[in-house]
């Protein structure tokens, strides 16, 4: 008994317990990051295409996705355990499904055909098959066995070049039509709302006619060119044979790329991998976010975090300054401190609802009525947007900034503050020249914490401006360049959307891990930036060591 008592007294057990706690935390972090990395990083690696022949004569071509043990009950009620393989067979438009589970026992033959081709398409997911023929770019008789595949690639290049030409033409036409459609909406709006007199509307109609006449020649030319391009592109085709011998002919512009993973060396695969990663980081999503890149989401996340920081830092710092330097310390200030600290514990969705009610409906609605009344009832600011989402998050992270700044201010030596005042500085001069620079590391700690908290929030964003697919970035080349009213994409929401809302969850799952990994990387990068800034400042303002 005594021994046990002294054991507790010495506290040896607490060393073990605390060490255990630390170990557990580290283990969990490593586990989370590890799983995400393993599952996320492999996504872009071009794995081999395999051909499976089954007992019942079925043939499947595709990539092994998953293996699993399953318990099957046969006719006699006997349970047996079988190994199953999930194969991504693609060709959704032909088979109606992307994946197939097969029993390993049923496999008669398994091979990796050298000329199995994986096709990436803009729509309908991947295709797996063999190339039978294609429309060549150069003369037909130049194609032989050796250059067959590279010639096919050339045709693809041609088709894609035509595709972008077509897009350009389409844009030109749209641009030409913009003034006309603007005028037309104005006319119909004023007809509905009765904001204009008959004569005025008549006048507008004349203008409409004038515009129509002035652009008609050019429009016709563009449209005929567009038609010609489209016809030409539709003529570049490829015929593909699937594993079960069906042949399909598709225009080549439907493909993003095609390649033969079974013939690629490790180096080639690595190069391909990097291309895919680059595409992931820089391109728009396709296929309801399950393919392509996440650039708009990266952009939205970073811009939102920056806007949030811009909003939260001045407010947080001013509040902390007032609380510490000006307010008379006492009951009220203590209550305010308590309230701020408690604000940090409010569930984020509550902030979201507040953001929706206050920022979007009240503020946004008022702005619309005052400045954008011509476009009503179509809201401009009176609907979710990146500005409102950032402000909501700023509110959410305000307590963190206030508390950290207060700590920074409290750490400023009293002797320095007195020294400044004794030299005849006003209080404000003291704050500006002594307190703020010295509290800078504390302020930046607050920013770091705010970024960590803000970048990972999803719930409040879902009702204040995040969307599955934003038509345009909040920052672009058209005046006024930054469009704070626009909806935006966010990596956190992207994860949720791809993982749980997409029509093809199975295929999208790796994308979820990859996106999660990216979000972690971005949060860490933003934090490192702030930490780097803080360390620089710390060096500059190291406090007196007397």
């Amino acid at each position, binding site marked *: 008994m005594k021994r046990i008592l002294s054991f507790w007294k010495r506290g040896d057990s607490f060393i073990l317990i605390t060490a255990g706690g630390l170990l557990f935390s580290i283990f969990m972090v490593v586990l989370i990051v590890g799983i995400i990395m393993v599952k996320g990083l492999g996504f872009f690696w071009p794995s081999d295409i395999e051909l499976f022949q089954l007992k019942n004569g079925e043939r499947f071509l595709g990539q092994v996705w998953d293996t699993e043990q399953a318990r099957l009950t046969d006719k006699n009620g006997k349970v047996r355990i079988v190994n199953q393989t999930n194969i991504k067979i693609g060709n959704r438009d032909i088979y109606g499904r992307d994946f197939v589970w097969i029993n390993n026992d049923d496999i008669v033959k398994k091979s990796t055909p050298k000329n199995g081709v994986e096709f990436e398409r803009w729509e309908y997911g991947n295709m797996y098959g063999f190339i039978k023929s294609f429309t060549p770019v150069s003369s037909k008789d130049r194609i032989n066995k050796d250059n067959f595949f590279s010639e096919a690639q050339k045709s693809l290049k041609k088709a894609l070049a035509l595709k972008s030409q077509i897009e350009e033409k389409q844009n030109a036409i749209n641009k030409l039509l913009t003034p006309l459609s603007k005028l037309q909406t104005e006319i119909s709006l004023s007809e509905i709302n009765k904001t204009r007199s008959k004569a005025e509307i008549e006048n507008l109609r004349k203008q409409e006619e004038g515009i129509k006449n002035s652009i008609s020649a050019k429009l016709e030319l563009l449209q005929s060119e567009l038609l010609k391009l489209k016809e030409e592109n539709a003529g570049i085709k490829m015929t593909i044979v699937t594993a079960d011998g069906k042949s399909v002919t598709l225009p080549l512009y439907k493909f993003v790329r095609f390649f033969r993973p079974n013939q690629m060396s490790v180096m080639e695969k690595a190069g391909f991998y990097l291309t895919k990663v680059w595409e992931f980081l820089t391109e728009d999503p396709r296929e309801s976010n399950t393919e392509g890149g996440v650039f708009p989401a990266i952009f939205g996340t970073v811009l939102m975090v920056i806007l949030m920081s811009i909003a939260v830092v001045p407010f947080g710092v001013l509040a902390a300054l007032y609380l510490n330097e000006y307010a008379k310390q006492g009951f009220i200030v203590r209550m305010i401190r308590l309230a701020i600290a408690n604000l940090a514990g409010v569930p984020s969705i509550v902030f979201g609802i507040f953001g929706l009610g206050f920022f979007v409906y009240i503020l946004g609605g008022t702005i619309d009525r005052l400045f954008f009344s011509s476009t009503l009832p179509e809201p401009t600011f009176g609907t979710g947007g990146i500005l409102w989402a950032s402000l909501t998050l700023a509110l959410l992270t305000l307590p963190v900034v206030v508390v950290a700044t207060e700590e920074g201010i409290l750490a400023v030596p009293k002797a*320095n503050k007195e020294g400044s005042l004794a030299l005849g500085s006003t209080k404000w001069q003291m704050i500006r020249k002594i307190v703020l620079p010295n509290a800078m590391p504390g302020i930046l700690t607050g920013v770091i914490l705010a970024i960590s908290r803000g970048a990972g929030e999803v719930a409040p964003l879902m009702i204040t401006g995040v969307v599955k697919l934003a038509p345009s970035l909040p920052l672009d080349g058209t005046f006024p360049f930054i469009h704070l009213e626009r909806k935006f994409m966010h990596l956190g929401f992207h994860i949720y959307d791809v993982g749980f809302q997409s029509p093809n969850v199975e295929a999208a799952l790796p994308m979820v891990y990859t996106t999660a990994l990216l979000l972690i990387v971005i949060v860490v990068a933003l934090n490192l930036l702030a930490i780097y800034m803080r360390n620089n400042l710390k060096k500059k303002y190291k406090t007196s060591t007397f």
Partner: protein
Amino acid sequence: MNVDIGNAVRKNEEAETSEERIVLETKDLNFYYTPEVKTLKNINISIPEKKVTAFIGPSGCGKSTLLRCFNRMNDLIPGVKLEGKIEIDGQDIYSPEVNLEDLRKKVGMVFQKSNPFPMDIWENVAFGPKVNGVTDKVELEELVVSSLKQADLWREVKDRLKTSALDLSGGQQQRLCIARALANKPEIILMDEPASALDPISTNKIEETIEELRANYTIIIVTHNMQQAARVSDYTAFLMTGDLVEFNSTSTLFTNPDEKLTEDYITGRFG
């Protein structure tokens, strides 16, 4: 405690005889940190211009408190109360029309613990003039150089004016704080135990600096070190538990005090 004051007294004798102007005067000064506790009791003291006045007394008797009344640093502490008057050049410094910043510019202060700002040396010295509205580059430069020279620091730092003040030694930091106060061209300099945290050599340096400043500034210095008081000051005030026990020329106070209490204190019978 044995006080060797012979030299110091002889040196200061002639000062006593000349005509003196009173620059700072307190009238029935009472000071409270809390309503119940009177920290300073009925202080009447007249500080002569361009002399060194020392405040001595046992710890906690109110020397610092009295000193901090002179530049109103006590205003920063919530809940304090002051009764009576403090006049500088005949002007009541607690009257509403007094500008606090101007007062503190006129009455400089050097703290017990040196408190250089975390900036470079040049910026430290230029801080006072800058916050008081000096913008002219040449003038600032001149002020910085002359202040550093007066504080006897110029030779040591002239090649490193742009390095951090925090890299200076303790004694240099304290002289920097003196230079910083001088850059405001004050009339009165308050020093609260400026050398108590320093080694003997640095202390010596500070005393030399005071020696050089005495011709142009009124200096009030709080010290625990009675030899120091005897060495540097012309007048000495002895305070005890908030009372001004005796205020006399340093030579009189140390050789032939009027009060029994003073004698007990300087001969080390208590304190």
